[in-house]
């Protein structure tokens, strides 16, 4: 289990990346959600011991990882958001390099590389130099390297960025399959990825933890607050200013809008079942964030 106590990270004089974070992560997938600049990557760097906190500490199974970073590094799998590869190594050579860094023996490393390349569909490309890989393929290599040492703590920052929908589903399945008895911290802006995989969701805003709860209870808090109705196109801007608009669907006779509000916006508006995305927007309270769909 990973415990964070009063974690804070200050940049410069008075700019806090994260502040007063208390969090307990038990085995399972924990989704980390928050707008840009909320402190997600900062928190992940602290958990992975890449960065030291200004205040507070963190424990892995009771051991202080700030004092003894080796404790968590031994069992850690990490995919940073902005990770790189050595372009002149082949995919297999790069993974062997990471396996050696993680302290795996030759046989285990080789077996794990074969298996993970198989589930990410990179077997045929394993002997190609990484400079020839597309962005999505490099991302897949990143995911494989994070899983090489069969980590007990897996921290992945935006793992599905740059992947096509099919690959995204594969990554979700992979994360779900490895998360049975280990801690997975998944940061992403793609709320459906969290919805499909996470047992719990931690919401960050302005460097502070808003909540850490199950997706169901988060959605429950938004129940009876989500409405859909057909509005004239010319009113869309007004609606956006007035309500938290979750999505819009262009139709021939107007725009079907989905809004989050305590009161029914118009008599024709019908209450609908909220999604995790609705719940997230309700908690974060951003205006004008929408997904447009044309029908």
């Amino acid at each position, binding site marked *: 289990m990973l415990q964070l106590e009063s974690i804070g990270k200050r940049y410069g004089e008075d700019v806090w990346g994260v502040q007063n974070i208390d969090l307990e992560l038990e085995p399972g997938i924990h989704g980390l959600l928050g707008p840009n600049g909320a402190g997600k990557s900062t928190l992940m760097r602290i958990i992975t011991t890449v960065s030291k906190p200004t205040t507070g500490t963190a424990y892995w199974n009771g051991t202080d990882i700030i004092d003894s970073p080796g404790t968590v590094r031994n069992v850690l799998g990490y995919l940073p958001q902005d990770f790189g590869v050595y372009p*002149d190594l082949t995919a297999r050579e790069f993974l062997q390099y990471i396996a050696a860094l993680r302290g795996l023996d*030759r046989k285990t490393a080789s077996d794990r590389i074969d298996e993970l390349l198989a589930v990410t*569909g990179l077997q045929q490309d394993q*002997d190609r130099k990484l400079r020839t890989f597309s962005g999505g393929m490099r991302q897949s290599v990143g995911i494989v*390297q994070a899983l090489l040492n069969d980590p007990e703590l897996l921290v992945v920052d935006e793992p599905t960025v740059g992947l096509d929908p099919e690959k995204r589903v594969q990554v979700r399945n*992979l994360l779900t399959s*490895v998360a049975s008895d280990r801690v997975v911290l998944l940061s992403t802006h793609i709320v459906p990825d969290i919805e499909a995989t996470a047992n719990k969701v931690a919401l960050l805003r302005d460097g502070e933890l808003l909540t850490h709860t199950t997706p169901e209870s988060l959605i429950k808090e938004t129940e009876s607050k989500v409405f859909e109705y057909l509005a004239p196109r010319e009113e869309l801007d007004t609606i956006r200013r007035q309500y938290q608009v979750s999505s819009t669907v262009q139709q021939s006779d107007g725009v079907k809008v989905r809004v989050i509000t305590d009161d029914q916006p118009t008599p024709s508006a019908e209450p609908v079942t909220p999604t995790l995305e609705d719940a997230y927007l309700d908690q974060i309270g951003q205006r004008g964030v929408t997904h447009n769909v044309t029908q």
Partner: protein
Amino acid sequence: MLPNRATSIAYVGWADFLQRVRSRRLLVILVVIAYFGYQLNVGTFELLYQDTVAGETISYRGEPTSAYVGLSTGVTGATILLFFGYYILSGSIMRDRSTGVNELVASTSIRNVSYLLGKWLSHVGMVIVLLATLGGAALVNHLVHGAGMTNPLWILGAVFLVGLPLGCFVAGVTIFFQSSDKLNGTLGNVVYIFGALTLLIVILAAGSEQESGAIPLWLRLGDLLGLFAAGEMTFDALLAVAPEYSGPPVANYGTGSGEVVRYHWDGGSWPQWFYINRFGVILLGIGLVFAATVPYKRFAPGGESERRSLGDRLKRIIPSLFPGKTVQKTEIQTPAEISMTPVTDRASGGFGRLLIQELRLLVRGYPWWWYIGALIIGIVGLSGGTASGAIVSIAAIWPLFVWSGMGYRTVQHRITPLIVSSKQPLRQLIAEWMAGALMTAAFLGATLWPTIVETSFDGILVLAGVVLFVPSLAQALGLWSQTRRVFELIYLVLWYIGPLNGVPALDFAGSTSETAGTATPLVFAITGTVLFLGAVVHRYLQA
């Protein structure tokens, strides 16, 4: 149309300039520049006329009047810019490539020449900052150490008149080199410094052979550093205190050992030809920017060139020699279909595999001619048929490509988070160092073996010294500076003075017969050890 283009150029230049001046590295550069200015003004080194009378060298230097301080600071500023300006200024185009800004720029309507002129302007802006620092230091130093009244106009005017055009020229060279796939890396760095050295030596040699006042106009127009102008302006003042002077009419840098005679020079008019010269040098710089549009590629993904390695080329040319695996349709298995091997032991070493991969990283990705050159060095060195000094010097410079990525590569390819979050972050550092040491041992061992056979233990000590020193210097400077240019510049200067010119005290590679058996190898071995410890400290702080 033209005002729009001018605005585009200005914005490209301004954005690049802001990015540069907000870097903390600039502060370090300015401190070093100011220190140079201080050393010049307190006379640690100075522009000197030198003559030999009855076997004794006599140095002539000017009294530190405003005019003299301005003139000598200007020439020094130009010299600094000629030798170090390239390394300080370069990086702007590569930065756009590594950050992906070039993709945005490539999708806009800005013309290549406008973009490159904008970058050139930013470089010139940096030159102005550097010269202003040097000029400011000269002003302060004249106030403290100078003779007569401090005249800011003379001091700053001379600094900018001599230094700025040369800076414009170096900025143009930088743009040209950065725009070329062949010259934007280590090769360009090497070509530049030797080009600058050659230029200076040729100008000085040509000027020193002439009688005072008889330097032909074409030669004066090639006076990049203002040395001939300085000579023309101060020579009469020199003759006033030393009418018997028979040395060269051009001053050179020196420390003024031996007898020093001071002459008094209060300034005067700059020669007319010098204004034409400065204007021409600026035009040359701008011309190089226009020339750079030929090799410049508007978009190069990830800052990586499209160069192919020798192996890749062979694979393309004769695919039958490299059959590879038959391409099949990729079948993706689900995690449920595969029984994943559990990992129970995460402390099973792996250092050997790490070392192998680090060796691969060191030897891959160079142009084909580099491998051919390495092979020739090996064959010639092992045959022992050539004068040892020459081949040792070459062997000490050829692996510059190998060493210069050390320490910096993890930053360049954003691998650092993966390393510092591993259980033993120091292992990568040690593996990289050992890979570098093995490469050094291979190159220098192949060429130093006659010395080892001849001198036994002393020869082994020479080899040990270079093996300890060079990879440690590369790794420590790469880690601390987070660029490869600092190592390349320092190493090139060191190599030029030591192994190439055979100055025994700096001959870390043992290219002269005088090195073996002295304390020099030991000094470099100890320095290397200290540098390696510095790298370890850096990694420890990172982790």
